[in-house]
């Protein structure tokens, strides 16, 4: 039973923040856009157990709950860590829920194989936009048709690399039947996977929003124009306030959604958190760039590392008309305010 006091692991968060602040300065992030995932950074993170936080120890994980996974993803996102932490975590979770586990010392990613054919233990079909596929050793594919999950290795031959707006890999995977595949029966639905992905993606956005708010505030306090720090101008202050609101609102929303998800599907809470994260990401990117002026439009200054991730992540794993409609449908299904004040699984029961 989670109580009114259930909260975030602040020590874990601090450790993650510190690790990435030390090991993942802007130069490392920028380098990953051409060089791919920095393997030493990944190995170090893995050695500390970060990518497996929130996965049961019985499944090779570091233990903890999804609340801890949220802490790790947020802390890493504050440094724009160019690692498949979210994807690896989802892959490990799918396997753990299916009684399996990831190989040790690996780098995994995850996908849904909507149009993948399963024939006698081999997979055939294409999966678009798989994050970090080029960098991963293992691909974990949810197969909704057969209710299975597949742990795939040796899939490099069929890869066509691509990138997202943040310069991170988003690759086309072609499975030809030649891959090494382990199939497990899996109780997780695509809907459940999508909800967990939305929550974790919102957690990443919350971390980036912190970084953007902090970077912009520091800039505004230091940068002088017209003989004064620009932070003293009302027009700039409006942007700084928006950034603080983005950080505060999305930060709390993600934690509350994660806590709710410990006990129930929490579709309303997770979708609300993701929608707020998306909207504030959009507004925060705009505000931060407006404060920075031309300096922020270059790749010589680190703001772009964060705002590009805001754009990349606000448009995946729950976004746009689909997200809005699903949330509006839930809101319309029962007395809205009563449901919110109850803070219980109202959307499922009415």
């Amino acid at each position, binding site marked *: 039973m989670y*109580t*009114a*006091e*259930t*909260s*975030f692991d602040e020590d874990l968060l601090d450790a993650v923040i510190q690790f990435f602040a030390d090991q993942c300065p802007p130069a490392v992030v920028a380098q990953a856009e051409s060089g791919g995932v920095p393997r030493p950074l990944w190995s170090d993170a893995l050695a500390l157990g970060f990518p497996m936080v929130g996965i049961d120890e019985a499944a090779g994980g570091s233990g903890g709950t999804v609340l801890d996974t949220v802490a790790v993803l947020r802390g890493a996102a504050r440094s724009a860590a160019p690692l498949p932490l979210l994807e690896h975590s989802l892959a490990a979770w799918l396997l753990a829920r299916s009684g399996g586990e990831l190989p040790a010392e690996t780098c995994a990613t995850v996908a849904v194989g909507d149009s993948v054919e399963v024939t006698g233990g081999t997979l055939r079909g294409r999966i678009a936009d798989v994050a970090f596929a080029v960098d991963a050793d293992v691909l974990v594919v949810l197969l909704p048709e057969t209710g299975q999950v597949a742990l795939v290795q040796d899939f490099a031959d069929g890869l066509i690399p691509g990138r997202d707006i943040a310069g991170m890999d988003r690759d086309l995977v072609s499975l030809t039947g030649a891959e090494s595949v382990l199939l497990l029966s899996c109780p997780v639905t695509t809907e459940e996977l999508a909800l967990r992905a939305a929550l974790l993606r919102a957690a990443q956005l919350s971390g980036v929003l*912190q970084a953007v*708010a*902090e970077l912009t*505030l*520091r800039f505004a*306090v230091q940068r002088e124009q017209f003989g004064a*720090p620009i*932070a*003293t101008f*009302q027009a700039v*202050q*409006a942007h*700084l*306030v928006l950034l*603080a*609101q983005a*950080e*505060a*609102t999305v*930060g*709390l*929303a993600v*934690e*509350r959604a994660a*806590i709710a998800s410990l006990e129930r599907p929490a579709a*309303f*809470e997770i*979708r*609300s*958190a993701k*929608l*707020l994260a998306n*909207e504030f990401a959009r507004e925060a990117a705009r505000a931060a760039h407006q404060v920075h002026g031309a300096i922020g439009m270059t790749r010589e200054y680190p703001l772009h590392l964060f705002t590009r991730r805001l754009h990349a992540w606000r448009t995946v794993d729950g976004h746009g*008309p689909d*997200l*809005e*409609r699903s*949330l*509006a*449908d*839930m*809101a*319309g299904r029962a*007395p*809205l*305010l*009563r449901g*919110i*004040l109850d*803070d219980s699984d109202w959307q499922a029961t009415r």
Partner: protein
Amino acid sequence: MTPRAALRPTSLTESERALQQQVRRWLADRLPVGSHPPGLGMAAAADPVFSADLGAQGWLGMSLPPEYGGGGRTAVERQIVVEELLSRGAPVAYHWVADRQSGPSIAAVGSEEQKATYLPGIARGEFCFAIGMSEPGAGSDLAAVRARAVPADGGWRIDGTKIWTSGAAWATHILGLFRTSDDRHGGLTQFIVDTRTPGVGIAPITFIDGSKDFCEVTFDNVVLPSSAVLGEVGGGWGQNTGELALERGGVDRWLSPAVLVDEWAAQPDADSRELALAAASLWAFRGMSLSIARMVDTGQRPVQLAALVKEMATRFEQDTVEAVSRWQGRLPDPDEPAGLLSRAVLAAPSWTIRGGTTEILRTVIAKGMIRDVHR
């Protein structure tokens, strides 16, 4: 370092949920749907009988000390009661200011005599307080207050005019800010004025929606005893801003259009983007208000956070009313039975003005952030 750092997720405990259920049951009986024209959050109707009934339940003055008739309960418990009231558009105006603002102020800085005199009546819902701050030349800029109190015959004599005082028409008391010296900030003092005192004149100023609870209050040679001073002479500025600060993060900053939103959400053809944004925002603000109340209960004073929430929550209230009005179309007279949306459209601008304008709050918040960077 940043305002967020302080916000912690929290939810209701079992006993708090029990209170919530208890309030709901009572309200379902006392205030069934259709029994009252629903109001707009804290600007709902005034109903002294309802306030007295609420007081009898122990749901007024909840956070006041028990030795003065208060409930000695938590900020979260008070929030639970207020949520249920505002989400129904309950007639809270008679007790609102006393319960939310003046009572806690008197408890914090009042004399023993003042506490004994006012707090029990506030907790019973008998006293209705109004706030006398603004003047024609002093809206956002309270340091420009000119209404003056001068020592006279062992007490004080006050003269001047206060304006835009909500609820003064039926108030039993006015908690007013008066100039006792020319020092801009240090020359302001708070006084508790019984509205029956000779020389107090109260005249309604018609509000934009046609209602009459907005007032001008004149003080013409009003003689008060020295016991009318609340807190320190010259300490009114700090007492007053402290009074405002924590209330900013409360549920009343996002529940004004509660009844409208609930009706709108039930419409199958409501714009899904706008409804989704409204639903997610209400959920988020509820969490923020609850976290702030929990912080208050642990002795913290999250003043910056409260301002941060008020600034965006009141804009959200306006956005929501605009979305509903755009969707619904024709706006009837606010006095018609179907006039709630019209009243909301007309009153909405006041939500980002009262209790600190958007512009003032942004400056306050930004200054705090800059100060924290330099620390």
